[in-house]
């Protein structure tokens, strides 16, 4: 079931990027399985998902179209003048997108605030947040991590798209993040690691969750998975080639 959803969402996504001749293809392919797993395996209707790495907006739009929240007509307007679907998630207009994102380092704080609201309201709503690894350079992410851990906001589930590539280089050559698991543990999170492209790995990993602390799931991923330029900075920016389009659509 998850595979079927993934294929449908990826096909729509690839068509969107090709029609728009837009970049950020690699960023979306990096967290495709993660978002499908969260949306169609973990989330209940009242839960929230915050896509902190807003540059993967096309993926979020494709998921919301799969759910029927965004129409296929609107999907066709992606990147065009007058669209609701800007290259980063917009303000106030679409169910399933509570906040505009795109400036990195905001999403985990949004999740912390929503989780605090649930705690005050005494409900059990869960807040899922997907951040990139590059945005862990942002100090605000660590402010949020401190707050979530201190207040033991166990209703936050933080998924990190660990593809080791950021905007202008590799993460370990820019601002070293490893050992990331130890950093997160020392902040007070329960940390698990999964293959972020493998649904079985994601399921097995989350099944290990002890639910005593807020959870951080480090998802090892490949930026631009299955593109010719996968695992390079190039696939963050460059639009889809014709041959990659044919290859991914056929898969």
């Amino acid at each position: 079931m998850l595979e079927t959803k993934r294929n449908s969402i990826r096909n729509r996504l690839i068509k969107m990027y090709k029609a728009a001749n837009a970049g950020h293809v690699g960023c979306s392919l990096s967290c495709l399985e993660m978002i499908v797993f969260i949306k169609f395996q973990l989330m209940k209707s009242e839960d929230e998902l915050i896509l902190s790495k807003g540059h993967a907006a096309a993926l979020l739009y494709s998921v919301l179209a799969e759910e029927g929240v965004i129409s296929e007509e609107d999907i066709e307007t992606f990147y065009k003048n007058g669209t609701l679907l800007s290259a980063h998630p917009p303000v106030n207009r679409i169910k399933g997108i509570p906040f505009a994102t795109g400036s990195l380092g905001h999403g985990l704080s949004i999740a912390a605030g929503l989780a605090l609201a649930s705690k005050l309201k005494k409900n059990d709503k869960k807040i899922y947040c997907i951040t990139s690894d590059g945005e862990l350079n942002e100090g605000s992410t660590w402010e949020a991590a401190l707050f979530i851990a201190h207040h033991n906001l166990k209703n936050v589930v933080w998924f990190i798209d660990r593809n080791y590539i950021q905007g202008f280089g590799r993460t370990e050559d820019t601002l070293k993040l490893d050992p990331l698991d130890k950093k997160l543990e020392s902040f007070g999170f329960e940390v698990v690691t999964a293959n972020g492209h493998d649904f079985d790995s994601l399921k097995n990993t989350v099944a290990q969750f002890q639910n005593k602390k807020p959870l951080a799931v480090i998802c090892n991923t490949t930026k631009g998975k299955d593109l010719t330029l996968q695992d390079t900075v190039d696939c963050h920016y460059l639009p889809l080639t014709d041959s990659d389009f044919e290859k991914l659509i056929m898969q």
Partner: protein
Amino acid sequence: MRKEFAQAMIDIVQSNDKIVFLTGDLGFMALEGLQETMGERFINAGVAEQNMATMAASLAYEGFLPFIYSISPFITLRPYEQLRNDICLHNLPVKVIANGGGYGYGIMGSTHHNIEDIGSMRILPNMKVFVPFTSEDVATSLNEMIHDPSPNYLRLNLATTQQAIAVFSPWRKIKSTLSSFATKAVVIATGTVADNLFKLPTHLSDELEVWLVSKFPIDNIPQELIESIHKTKNVITLEEHQGQCGLHETLASLLLKQLSVPIKYNTLFASGYPSGRYGSQSWHQEENNLGGKNLENKIIEFIRN
């Protein structure tokens, strides 16, 4: 105004269970009573203003009425993008409470001052800025703020000691002259720096009609004020704020639309730290021609020449 603020909040939260108060690790000797009254709805978010501002946006999204509190530069300029993206672009009713503003923190130095607050806040989408003058203005401002479904900024400073000042309003006349014939200039001021106008020598003060702007963005200038300006053709602006984006620039654009005669337009504003030396709030005001003898000399220059 900090004590008045704390008391007004204690009164308000007793009948409003939507309010959540977040402080950026400040409030010593001021907010303890509020903390006790609010219980779990009062949260010390730590010295982490960016996270605090965004969390407040989320709380507002969930139907709460969040307040965020710190010293003025720490609650405005540090999390500026969080205020813009997460609060203001989404038009969420987060109440940004700034202790200080202008040279309010005096000898604490430039990092604790904020002569950019009104400008930087008033240009944010949906944001309204409240600049109280009297102690009573604090509670009045707060009562207006809690009913406003938009983001607000409140600048707390040392209240005026003047009595019988008109109640809080975006525009109010706070000093008249004996007759319109005696009026040599109309002073338009914002904030508690206007208190310095009451300390001028009487013979000078008697020649000034004084108006106060207490809320931004400003809109239509009252007709009574327009008439006074038409008579004197001499306006002096006074603000404890830097020259750009504050009172005199926004006022000038309105006057250009509403006036039918040319006038003298004299501006008094904070130029920063001209000597590179530090002192009390009133010392900085005087160094910037906003108080004391320097203000007096400037006003003489504006109304005699």
